[in-house]
């Protein structure tokens, strides 16, 4: 506990800001139902009511409370993005480390497979698959995770490439250790810092990607609240000079900035990059 406190004290203001933002989002996501006066998709007023009494941020195109939907949107979007990123790291990370540890044809095969996947524009590919398979949440998670795992694979492979040639890995091989031991005990602990940093960035990208898909109508489906589709549903308000549709967009932007600040700080701490001079 004291260590964590010390670590926080040494953090730059940007990182503290990022941490505060992330903490606030997580709290809101967890305690969402307690904070909101209405249900997630409950119609409580007429369409497009203005900010004020009863509806702090007005209502949307169907007469649902905007604030309520923003809070539920945090739950859905962040939750799905988090699960997706974890899955992407599981797939990409394990395969990337496996490729370098086994080397030879396994490395070649996985590498070429990833090349093929990466050659197709990710948004178009996702749209194509989601149109065919339908847009349930598990499918959404799986498709984005697989597509994103290619990037994780590349990173995990290049990081572990530099580790796998070190003498202690050779010593473990000559001891007769199995592949799993070498990956989890010898390589992974040394590859962690860049991977953790990448986790933060990847999370942002996944998050933006889900929002983009929702905006296009192929992401999280109504009536589930989601920031991307909220922008789309209320986009017409912009024409009348109302900034309400920008609020979910702003929520996305704020989280992305916060996560990036924290990731930057973490990268500087672990990689020894210095700011001086």
């Amino acid at each position, binding site marked *: 506990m004291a260590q964590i406190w010390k670590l926080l004290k040494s953090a730059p203001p940007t990182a503290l800001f990022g941490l505060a933002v992330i903490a606030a989002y997580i709290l809101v996501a967890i305690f969402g139902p307690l904070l909101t006066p209405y249900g997630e998709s409950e119609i409580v007023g007429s369409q497009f009511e203005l900010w004020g009494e009863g509806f702090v941020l007005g209502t949307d195109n169907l007469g649902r409370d905007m604030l309520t939907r923003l809070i539920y949107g945090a739950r859905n979007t962040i939750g799905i993005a988090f699960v997706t990123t974890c899955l992407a790291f599981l797939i990409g990370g394990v395969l990337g480390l496996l490729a370098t540890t086994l080397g030879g044809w396994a490395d070649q095969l996985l590498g070429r497979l990833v090349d093929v996947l990466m050659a197709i524009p990710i948004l178009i590919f996702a749209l194509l698959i989601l149109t065919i398979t339908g847009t349930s949440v598990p499918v959404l998670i799986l498709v984005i995770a697989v597509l994103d795992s290619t990037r994780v694979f590349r990173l995990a492979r290049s990081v572990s490439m530099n580790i796998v040639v*070190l*003498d*202690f890995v*050779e010593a473990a*091989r*000559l*001891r*007769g*250790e199995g592949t799993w031991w070498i990956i989890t005990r010898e390589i992974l602990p*040394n590859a962690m810092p860049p991977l953790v940093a990448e986790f933060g960035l990847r999370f942002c990208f996944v998050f933006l990607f889900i929002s983009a898909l929702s905006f296009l109508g192929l992401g999280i489906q109504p009536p589930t609240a989601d920031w991307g589709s909220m922008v789309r549903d209320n986009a017409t308000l912009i024409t009348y000079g109302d900034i309400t549709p920008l609020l979910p967009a702003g929520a996305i932007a704020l989280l992305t900035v916060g996560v990036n600040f924290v990731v930057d700080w973490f990268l500087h701490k672990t990689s020894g990059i210095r700011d001086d001079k």
Partner: protein
Amino acid sequence: MTSNGGNNGEVLLEMRGLRIEGQSEDQWNEIVHGIDLTLRRGEVLGLIGESGAGKSTIGIASMGFARPGCRISGGSIVFDGMDLRAASDEQLRKLRGSRIAYVAQSAAAAFNPAHKLIDQYSEAPVQHGVKRKGEAEKEAMELYRRLRLPDPENIGFRYPHQVSGGQLQRAMTAMAMACRPDLIVFDEPTTALDVTTQIEVLAAIKDVVEEFNTAAIYITHDLAVVAQMADRIMVLRYGDLVEEDNARDMLANPKEDYTRQLLAVRTYRKEEAPPDESPVPLLEVRNVTASYGGRVIVLDDVSVKVGRGRTVAVVGESGSGKSTLARVITGLLPPSEGAVLFDGEELPATYKKRSRDQLRHAQMIYQMPDTALNPRQRIRDIIGRPVSFYLGLKGADREKRIRELLEMIEMDPDEFIDRLPGELSGGQKQRICIARALAAEPELIICDEVTSALDQLVAEEILKLLQRLQDDLGVTYLFITHDLATVRAISDEVVVMLEGRVVEQGGKADIFTPPHDPYTDLLLSSVPEMDPDWLDNLLADRAARKARGEKVMETSDQ
């Protein structure tokens, strides 16, 4: 050096109470504590000490420069009447390269790989407005000839990767000479070179420095090398001056204990192990030929026998195939022909097919203890893994065994068992590597250049420890090294390798007594000795033998 500088020249460089601080984390720590240094014109001053002594930092400070992360915090540096600490960047820029030059340890890293040698030579004189390009190039060729580079007219038109390491170091010396500076700082110029190449570079440097009456600061950790080069020697330790004297006086009559220790290094000799009486040697490498990717043959019909309880040293220069031999024995590189036999039984060619017991019997210790230990594992896990993996010990038994092993390598278990490798010194890390090898209870330990990355005094402690362990446990060593001092200290038998072949092998006494194979002769005669006249005598001797028409190998680096 035949004191051409001596004590009567005019003072060129004077440092008074020089203090330098280095940054670690967020604090500044003093690493050089008030050094006084006086250098006269034409004099060669040797700075000697182990790593961390501050010798390079002081050498660079003579140019008024501190490395990033260091700063000069006190004292004065006066070069030819000019206060370098007060000088502007512009004044310093004019000074550097033209009146003070620097020769780095790794010439390969100091040359720009994208430009030809001669263009890099001419850059400084042209930039400083001393000479025009044509003149500079003509002079470069003259210097290349003087430094005995092959084909001096054309070698300058090659790129850095097209010449060998020794040649590159000489080209860099030529480059430093380009503006005829008053002072050259040599920072370990021969440390990365093979012994036979080192001679050439030392002779060349000595020759040009004398010819142009240049003052020099010669930085090295090797007292025998500095004995050949310097008029005066300063011994440094932890940023303090230990002793300063004329080279000859210091070598003949060192005053401080530390200097005496440095002089006595390499005099350690083990007693010969009893010969192996059993009919089957512990390890036999039989007619092994190996190559990387099937093209370049790295080992050519190599046969080596290693008897039980003996220490066999495989010695050779870089590219001789000695490390490849270790890779074949451990099964990392399956040979294309031949076999490796352990205790009379043929081992599978690749380590992947060897049984756990076969792997256990042959352990390896690496050159770089930094990369041989996983930085994220604690000492307990590093040593404990082979204990539980091979011997199946768990819980309290395992802990007890780890502590025993730490005591064997003379490290206090309570203090070290929970540490990470990053919290240990180089010598301590190498001890942990030894303990990890011993944990498997092997019969054979392959030591691949285990002392090369360590300071001399630390290296000697490691050799003594290895010897004690052999006496106690009867383990057999295969020692791979380029360093003949190590061979002399620890081996029972010697295998000399050159270009993938075994040139000569036999008992230590046989190898070290003439007559030798010409290559063995070259290798043995090239090891610097503490005698200040050794280099001159050696060169005279080689010239005389050549004049008599004897076959004398001069270098293996052409």
